């Protein structure tokens, strides 16, 4: 009787959080939720790109078909979608920049023997992350203003 085998045989109740865990899992601070947002914006952008490329097909139909398709952009719903894409892009791009840096271990600091109360690298760098978020929000507002005027 080996535990490796036994573990899968034992009738234990699975308790995996599943996708629910991306949305809400407990009292976590910033990064766990940025993760979700990055994912949402990434998928959103991908969806948009797909639609966008599809819409580009109207160009093959000549000027008229293109112009009628592009009219969509001027109606309010189209404007909102366009704005969301811009904002999502601003977030995904800047946060993506942070992720690239941090995934490669930059800006996180060096490992060092922990001293109680423990502060992990993410928490130590959180001020920077907040600054990044502030820039994103500023950008989003700027784009909004541009859009409205």
């Amino acid at each position, binding site marked *: 009787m*080996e535990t490796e085998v036994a573990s899968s045989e034992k009738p234990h109740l699975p308790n995996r959080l599943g996708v629910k865990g991306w949305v809400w899992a407990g009292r976590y601070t910033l990064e766990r939720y940025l993760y979700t947002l990055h994912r949402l914006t990434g998928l959103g952008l991908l969806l948009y790109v797909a639609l966008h490329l599809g819409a580009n097909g109207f160009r093959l139909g000549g000027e008229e078909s293109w112009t009628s398709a592009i009219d969509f952009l001027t109606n309010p719903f189209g404007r909102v979608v366009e704005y969301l894409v811009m904002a999502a892009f601003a977030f995904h791009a800047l946060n993506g920049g942070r992720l690239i840096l941090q995934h490669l271990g930059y800006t996180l600091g060096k490992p060092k*023997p922990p*001293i109680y109360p423990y502060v992990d690298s993410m928490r130590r760098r959180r001020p920077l992350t907040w600054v990044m978020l502030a820039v994103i929000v500023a950008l989003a507002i700027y784009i909004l203003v541009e859009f409205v005027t």
Partner: protein
Amino acid sequence: MEAVHDVVILGSGLAGLRATVEAARVSNDELDIAIVSRVQLMRSHSVCAEGGTAAVMYPDEGDSLELHAWDTVRGSDFLADQDVVSLFVEESPKEIRQLDHWGIPWSRRPDGRINQRPFGGHSFDRATFAEDKTGFFEMHTLYDRLQKHARVTRYDECYVTSILVENGVFQGLTVWDLTSGEFFLIRGKALVIAAGGACRMFAFTTYSLSATGDGMAMAYRAGLPLKDMEFVQFHPTGLVPSGILITEGARGEGGYLLNNKGERFMEKYAPTKMETAPRDIVSRSEVTEILEGRGFSRPDGLDYVHIDLRHLGADKINERLPLIREVAIKFAFIDPIEQPIPIRPAAHYCMGGIHTDIHGATPVEGVWAAGEVSCMSLHGANRLGSNSTAECLVWGKITGEKAARYVMGQKSLAPIPEQKVQEEEKRLFEQVGHGDGSEDVFVIRTELQQMMDKNVAVYRNGPDMEVALDKIRELKKRLEHVKVVDTSRIYNTNLMAVLETTNLIDLAEIIVLGALTRTESRGAHSRTDFPNRDDVNWGKHTLAYYTPGQEHRFDYIPANITMWQPVERKY
């Protein structure tokens, strides 16, 4: 159901893990090895060891094997078997280097070599340490290393309920798998018992909740004699009120013990060694201070003195004693950088254990014992701090190797003890598992612990221990009428508490009987009615034998004196 293996290791503390690794190593992974533990392997009590592991690493800087041996023998109050001590001091440096090569983060000196710190009773700074989590790092280094060996089957969270022996030959273990609820037999050709100590029979103790002396009690019932059980070490610095250990390293690094007048009272008791005197002496000094009114009192009776680390400074505390700081903040809301820590003596170590020869072999063929559960006897009447983890490593290795070589000598399996297994299963789940008893196991256990704290503590005397004996026998009777409310077989910690308490009560009885008989004071066994050491009558080891249905039988064997004759012990 039954499982068959070549070598079975009972316990996954330092000794058990070291034995498993060694058995796998010397057999080139050819033997089928099982390691059984009542907790997940790496959770064993050994992770709590904090301060260090003794070894002579710097013979060119003043230390020597003879000096380590002398310190150990003197620390043991001349009860240690000196041939055992010799073997020990020779082997322990090898273990330090071995762990170094297996990846342990030993703390280092500026020149990159292994650092050592002063420890109580040692005449040289020879406690090798990894911050103040020595046992933790040792355990995880060994556990990690164990992952290399493919033919080791692990039985995590399998509670062993009995060791089966027939006609002086090992047959197997009966095991209750807590996570699946199954009860089964593990057969094997050889067994290494490394099941740890038993101080959970005390209320104020540094022990893990899972260290309940099962190994000793089961071995005893299987017919293995227990040696020197009356010697129980009290550690001078148990954190009030939880009993969590403040490592001896705290004193080794220069911490002061202070009474309520702010005096370093060790001046009076051990003027040369001060705070780094052996544990039995420091513990007695603290109790004397408290009894004479120079302690701090608490409403719950856990009167205490202080250990003061403030003068060490924040940097040294954070570097050398980070766990102590964390523990003090978490469990006493005290930051040792700013305040002294309240401490008092706490039950900490069993010098006694399963009687073995110098190589850990028990009187039963195919059975070895190593670690705290065993008694070869290295520590005599009082163990020096940091000698125990070293002992676990040294004899873990020796017994693992011996057991493996024994099996490789073409041993066959003992026949299946069908009937014994059935009887044991019945004892567990039928007799104990009824819900209509009148007694509550948790009440019984608490009464036992409180009584032991009161009557069989740092200072002992005849009348108190007579009371203790009566109480133990009363509790033993009451335990027969215990009720187990929990009916599930899976993770039934209610039933487990009954089994543990049965073991603790049996051992408590042996301790008290041994202590009552030993009419002298030696090392940790300190009787106010017999305050002096008596080498003529008592320079010998106590052996207790199980005699089913009757009183325990006691016998004595002389201590093995090969180097130094007993002299007066002064620090």
